[in-house]
């Protein structure tokens, strides 16, 4: 490449040495290509992060003047029961949402066979992921309704009084997580189905010769080959759990009395909903959520780096 640029210079027949831009064009080219992306990423992601952290040090209703309060928003947060409820629910989401990974694997293994119409069955199993989360939320809130929902009818069939799942502070989060698992399992399933297509038949064959069957076959032969799929499934499930906003907004709006809140919804409610507009306090919640996510993101990046290093 350097000779090419040298040729270009001689062709121009100029005695002047090539310009700085010209000399460094190879090094600069990738940055020019990256520039549009970098600009948008900083304007819409990086800069707002620092703005939020800055706003979290003020009391501000978004209309009047900002009032500097220092760490007061964080002090209030430490003393706020709703914050701990949300944090606890976030942890439940992270833990229970992980069930989507083994459940998705199980369905994928079950569907990984050649029967007439298997494509139809596969697409039916994938269906819930295609529906909007809003619809999933609506369907499940009717489903859970004790007076006309399926849950109520089943309970009454056994002669029990149906619980009001979305109206009970102890059950509500689990009810919403269960609704969220429905599409999430489908997502993990599709990841595993594509993974299973790439499982090498030679290794399965070799395993058979060595008398591997059932669980042993799955654990030692199939699963190691599905490792990339498992990694992606875990990543998207964690992201799904942390983004668990739409279902809560549709099904309960964080209720009853805030007991199904998660940090993301709590932040929205504080900063942007009808009775909120405390931008400073909302930003403080956002900052805490960001710190929690940072732990996960750093692990993710470190892991990617390790993989790429070889």
């Amino acid at each position, binding site marked *: 490449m350097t000779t090419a640029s040298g040729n270009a210079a001689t062709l121009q027949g100029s005695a002047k040495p090539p310009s700085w831009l010209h000399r460094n064009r190879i090094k600069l080219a990738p940055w020019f290509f990256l520039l549009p992306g970098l600009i948008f990423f900083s304007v819409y992601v990086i800069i707002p992060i620092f703005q939020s952290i800055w706003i979290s040090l003020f009391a501000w*209703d*978004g*209309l*009047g003047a900002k009032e500097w309060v220092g760490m007061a928003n964080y002090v*209030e947060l430490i003393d706020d*029961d709703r914050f701990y409820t949300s944090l606890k629910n976030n942890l439940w989401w992270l833990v229970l949402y992980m069930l989507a990974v083994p459940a998705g694997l199980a369905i994928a293994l079950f569907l990984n066979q050649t029967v007439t119409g298997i494509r139809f069955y596969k697409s039916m199993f994938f269906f819930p992921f295609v529906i909007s989360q809003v619809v999933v939320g609506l369907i499940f*809130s009717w489903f*859970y*309704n*004790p*007076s006309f929902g399926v849950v109520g009818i089943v309970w009454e069939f056994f002669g029990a009084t149906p619980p*009001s799942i*979305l*109206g009970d*502070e102890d059950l509500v989060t689990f009810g919403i997580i269960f609704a969220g698992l429905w599409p999430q399992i489908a997502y993990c399933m599709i990841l595993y189905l594509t993974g299973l297509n790439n499982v090498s038949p030679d290794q399965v064959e070799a395993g058979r010769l060595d008398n591997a069957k059932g669980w042993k076959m799955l654990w030692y032969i199939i699963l190691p080959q599905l490792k990339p799929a498992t990694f992606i499934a875990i990543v998207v499930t964690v992201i799904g759990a942390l983004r668990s906003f739409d279902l809560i907004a549709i099904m*309960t*709006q964080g*209720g*009853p*009395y*805030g007991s199904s809140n998660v940090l993301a919804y709590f932040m929205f409610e504080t900063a*942007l909903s*009808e*009775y*909120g*507009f*405390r931008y400073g306090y909302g930003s403080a919640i956002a900052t805490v959520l960001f710190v929690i996510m940072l732990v996960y993101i750093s692990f993710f990046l470190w892991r990617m780096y390790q993989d790429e290093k070889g």
Partner: protein
Amino acid sequence: MLNIIKRSAAALAVASLVSAPVLARDLVINFDDPNPAPKEGFETAVEKFKAANPDINVIVNITDREAHKTAIRNFLSAEAPDVTSWYPGNRMAPFVNAGQFEDVSDLWEAEGFNESLASTQSAMTIDGKQWGVPYTYYQWGIYYRKDIFEANGIDVPATWDELLAASAKLKAAEITPITIGTKFLWTAAGVFDYLNLRTNGYEVHNDLTAGKIKYTDPRIVDVFNKWKELVEPGYFIENHATMSWQDALAPFVQGEAAMYVMGNFAVAAMRDAGLTDDQIDYFPFPEITPGVPRAEEAPADAFFIPSNAKNKEDARKFLAFVAQPDVQTEWNATIGQLPINSNSSVGDDKFLQKGFETVSTAQGLAQFYDRDAPAEMAKGGMEGFQEFMIKPERMDAILERLDKIQDRVYK
């Protein structure tokens, strides 16, 4: 998107009228209720205004109520209309304090509104100035199934004991006495406000929402103890925390519940669901403490001029127009609510007549808990009410938490 289409259509209309003798001035109005009746009432009034002022080119944007609540914060500073609908009391306070609403005291003075709109003057006033002009309000109270009451031999309760007795009788007949849907919280505030107004009166309501009384004050504890007398025997419908006010209407319509503490807007929904006027009726919330002067919930809706409006002169004309007695009479007859102007006449619907009777003889009119209290207090308070209705045994903890929120909100 629709707005853009409407605006460009309006712009085209203007462009095609170049030969018009007078150059039309634009008047942009943002309105917040696309439901059939309110939309019709508003549009009819706008047509009338246009006919009276042919030189004004009125541009109307109608958005959904919830969307309007969020959008107003942007459009007031970014691209202000000349007139917008909004709510009185503490709901307008943030915008008034941020200098985003125009002081219209001059209009109140010039048009004699201090007399004709006297009933809502205090709700429209901050710092001794008026900030908007109300065009409608509606009564709250108890809507009940007349046929179910008659079938069970129950008379309309006038006192607390009679209400409890009626509830016990209904419960024994396996009918839920009171239906309510607290998913969106504000319905519980309606019940709380009435219990408070009837137990302690108007002053205590105002002092509480102004942060002058603590929630652990014995008078407020009394209110919650009265509320307990309804909650503990199960007089409210089960699972109310998962229902909106419309969801809670279903058992009422199906005859499984007999009473509903609601605003008059619910009547239209009851009629749409197939109930006839023989089946439904209205009575004011019964007396609790004898001798406490009767005050009512009567939230008003109003129009405001943003400070950044371009055409404030015509905006004032519109505000004066919506307060005219004939305009308010016709408008409120369409939407089934009460006109505020004391020279207007009330529609001959029985609910409007009874409501007007109730409201006009009241000692004071409260706007509503979430309009009289600042937003943050209202949110915390209403969550507390909902929690209390599910877990009445947590009363003390809830009241202490509300005190904590109060301390922070009213610094």
